[in-house]
């Protein structure tokens, strides 16, 4: 007998983790469902009660509270309730109450356990710690490995502006004037509204000037007639193959109706290649002013987009994007030394904050400082370094790295000190961890040398690491600071659910997800005296020491990578839509897969924050 109810099967199949089950299992499961209706304020279970079914919320909402009454979660349509009870042998651990009239699809416990036994991917979703699941999340998310975008993007996406065109009856002189006015190196020639030819800078040189042809002749006489073109829907690799096979640098793009849509150049294609950070860095070193460097860097959003599309890790992307900030800094320092002459005493330029950690994902605020050799004499050398630092910081601002609102920049004399001065400054922060000192510590302890006398870095870094290592008071206060950023409880419908029952409309991925992990990693590293500054590197190194459990550090690394990728994907989406990238994710953007893994990541962070609180703040209140 056919007793399948499509509405129920489709609903279950459409929600994570049931989407991981084969169709036949979901169909069989849908046939076993019991349907229950709870009026608002009705109790579904209380601690200690036997629970023999997993509830899937079909409509309405449930709320879970621990035995002390603290809010743990809210479940809306498609979400589960009673899971913890089933994983604890069928005894309810928490209170679950309907907060709206609710219709529940209940799956028998035995069937739930059988599905876990027989389907590894389904079981995976219910493993007791979130870490295991997060490890699998990147793989399951299914991004392919095309690192260039050549097989995933279409040429139409590269067309940035309307093509510059001229009628075939126009003169060569008119064509050249049109190109000059539009500042383009190539011009499309039209017959009516159809493409009939193309003229490039090179044609003007070779076929007009070198051939002593009159500029009053028709442009049709010198154009390349019936040029190769591709439709806007062609893949990038098709365009690339065509251009390299025929050794052409300009390729007209046509619309479905045959009218020209634009022109792409070899540079456009190269720019689209993810690996081109090296090319961009090369470009930066060719530039002679901060404006030019800024132009070279406008490609950063495209690079982020392509790297995300190609499945790169957030670790790799952070390094790639930070390397461009490094290149810009080095080039502007070169320009500064060209302008002001060689330095009177050795100096070192340091990146701190996210650039220091190699965790930039965009052109953000600049955070930097300078260490000067102990031969530095303010009276004699002060003016030089002030000019140099100001030139570089202002130059970086022109290039798109806006001035740090907190004034953490080498152009601020406070952050341009001798080696001895810096050692004293760090010493004060560690010995007297006042709020400001802690704030600075969280920025300056993430330092990385960019240019200058590297010996200065080794000396300073070794000194401060030794001083901070095992410093209970300082680490205790740093931990207190780290605990000010708390991850949310999870999601409820299109809201972010915050401890205590409040909600936000958007998830601040940076402050409630990534920053807490960065802060914890810094504490472990400083406690162990580790030289690493990148968060993942710190976590990896810290688990080799006894400062954090292997399990805990692995979970944090996975949470960091997952949160990082969710943030980057969000930013790539914004970039693709022509908006500027931010850190605010609206829950409606999230798939049920992402939601459930984000919840896992929050759980990992919360657990590790509690562990750090008891390790570093025991007795500090």
């Amino acid at each position: 007998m056919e007793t399948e109810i499509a509405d129920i099967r489709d609903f279950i199949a459409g929600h994570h983790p049931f989407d991981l089950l084969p169709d036949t299992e979901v169909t069989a499961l849908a046939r076993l469902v019991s349907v229950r209706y709870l009026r608002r304020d009705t109790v579904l279970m209380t601690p200690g009660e036997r629970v023999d079914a997993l509830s899937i919320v079909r409509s309405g909402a449930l709320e879970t509270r621990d035995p002390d009454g603290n809010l743990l979660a809210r479940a809306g349509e498609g979400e589960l309730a009673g899971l913890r009870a089933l994983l604890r042998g069928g005894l309810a651990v928490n209170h679950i109450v309907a907060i709206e009239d609710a219709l529940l699809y209940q799956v028998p416990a035995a069937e739930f356990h059988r599905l876990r036994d027989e389907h590894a991917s389904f079981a995976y979703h219910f493993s007791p710690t979130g870490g295991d699941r997060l490890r699998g999340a990147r793989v399951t998310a299914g991004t392919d490995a095309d690192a260039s975008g050549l097989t995933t993007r279409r040429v139409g996406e590269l067309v940035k502006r309307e093509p510059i065109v001229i009628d075939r009856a126009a003169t060569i002189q008119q064509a050249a004037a049109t190109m000059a006015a539009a500042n383009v190196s190539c011009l499309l020639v039209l017959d009516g509204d159809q493409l009939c030819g193309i003229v490039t800078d090179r044609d003007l040189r070779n076929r007009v000037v070198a051939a002593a042809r009159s500029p009053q002749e028709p442009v049709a006489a010198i154009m390349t007639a019936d040029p190769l073109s591709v439709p806007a829907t062609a893949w990038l690799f098709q365009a690339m193959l065509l251009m390299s096979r025929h050794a052409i640098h300009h390729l007209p793009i046509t619309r479905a109706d045959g009218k020209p849509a634009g022109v792409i150049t070899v540079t456009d294609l190269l720019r689209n290649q993810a690996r081109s950070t090296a090319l961009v860095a090369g470009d930066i070193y060719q530039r002679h002013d901060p404006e030019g460097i800024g132009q070279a860097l406008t490609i950063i959003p495209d690079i982020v987009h392509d790297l995300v599309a190609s499945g790169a890790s957030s670790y790799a992307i952070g390094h790639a994007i930070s390397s461009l900030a490094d290149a810009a800094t080095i080039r502007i320092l070169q320009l500064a030394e060209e302008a002001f002459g060689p330095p009177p005493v050795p100096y070192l330029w340091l990146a701190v904050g996210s650039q220091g950690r190699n965790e930039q994902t965009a052109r953000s605020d600049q955070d930097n400082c300078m260490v000067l050799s102990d031969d530095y004499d303010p009276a004699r050398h002060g003016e030089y370094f002030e000019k140099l630092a100001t030139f570089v910081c202002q130059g970086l601002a022109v290039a798109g790295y806006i001035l740090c609102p907190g004034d953490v920049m080498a152009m601020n004399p406070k952050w341009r000190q001798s080696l001895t001065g810096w050692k004293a400054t760090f010493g004060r922060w560690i010995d007297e961890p006042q709020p400001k000192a802690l704030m600075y510590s969280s920025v300056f302890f993430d330092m990385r040398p960019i240019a200058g006398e590297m010996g200065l870095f080794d000396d300073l870094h070794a000194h401060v690491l030794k001083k901070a290592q095992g410093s209970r008071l300082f680490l205790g206060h740093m931990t207190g600071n780290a605990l000010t950023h708390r991850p949310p409880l999870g999601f409820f419908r299109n809201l972010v659910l915050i401890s205590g029952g409040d909600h936000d409309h958007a998830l601040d991925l940076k402050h409630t997800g990534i920053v807490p992990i960065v802060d914890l990693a810094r504490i472990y590293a400083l406690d162990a005296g580790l030289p690493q500054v990148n968060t993942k590197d710190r976590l990896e190194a810290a688990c080799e020491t006894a400062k954090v459990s292997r399990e805990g550090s692995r979970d944090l690394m996975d949470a960091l990578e997952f949160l990082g990728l969710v943030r980057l994907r969000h930013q790539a989406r914004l970039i693709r839509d022509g908006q500027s990238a931010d850190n605010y994710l609206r829950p409606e953007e999230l798939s049920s897969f992402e939601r459930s893994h984000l919840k896992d990541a929050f759980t990992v962070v919360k657990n590790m924050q509690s562990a750090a609180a008891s390790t570093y703040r025991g007795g500090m209140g």
Partner: protein
Amino acid sequence: MPFSAIHNLISLDLLRWWLAFRAGGGPLRQYYAADYATLDKPWREVEFLAVDLETTGLDPRKDVVVSIGWVPIVGGAVRLAQAGYSLVRVDRPMPGESAVLHGILDRHVEDAPPLGDVLPEFLAALRGRIPVAHHALVEQGFLDAACRSVYGLPLRVPYVDTLALERRRAARTGREVKSGEMRLQACRDRYGLPRYRGHHALADALACAELLLAQATYMDGKQATRLQDLLV
């Protein structure tokens, strides 16, 4: 509860006893022989069977059953594991309009079992349970006619009618009922129940069963709603 309903039930019990005696062997006899809940039982202790028929029209004398779906309510929950559904063979051409409505074409129904083969399964599922339908007169009329034609005996059983419950609720609040407000989905909407695609006998039986859960839950006071409160 109105006096006439109690009166009906008492006489119904006697009638059923007599019908069971007359029915001889077979599914109808077994059906009549089973006890079912007393009127004062809290609804969660009563077993119900939500049933929905798709028919060629509304007149049991002229029209026929095309498909039947049922699903029980046991312990206050709808149990899909015990749901049933079948197409029913139709020996005459189906009128065009309703065939379109149900999405059932003549050729589907030709391969289906005849009513006489489907009915025993349905009566087995109904044993000891109170049937529930939305606008129960239709189900009542057609199922009674089916038993008469197959077994030569009527199907006498009290129905819970979710539409009648909804009408009574509206009357109590003194609200005027507008057209369309008593449709199954419209009633479900008022309890926040989800939208199902509908026009499939089993899906509609489920939709009706869920509506009864919501209605009975809403009627719960200090004491749970009793069976007698649901028989309008």
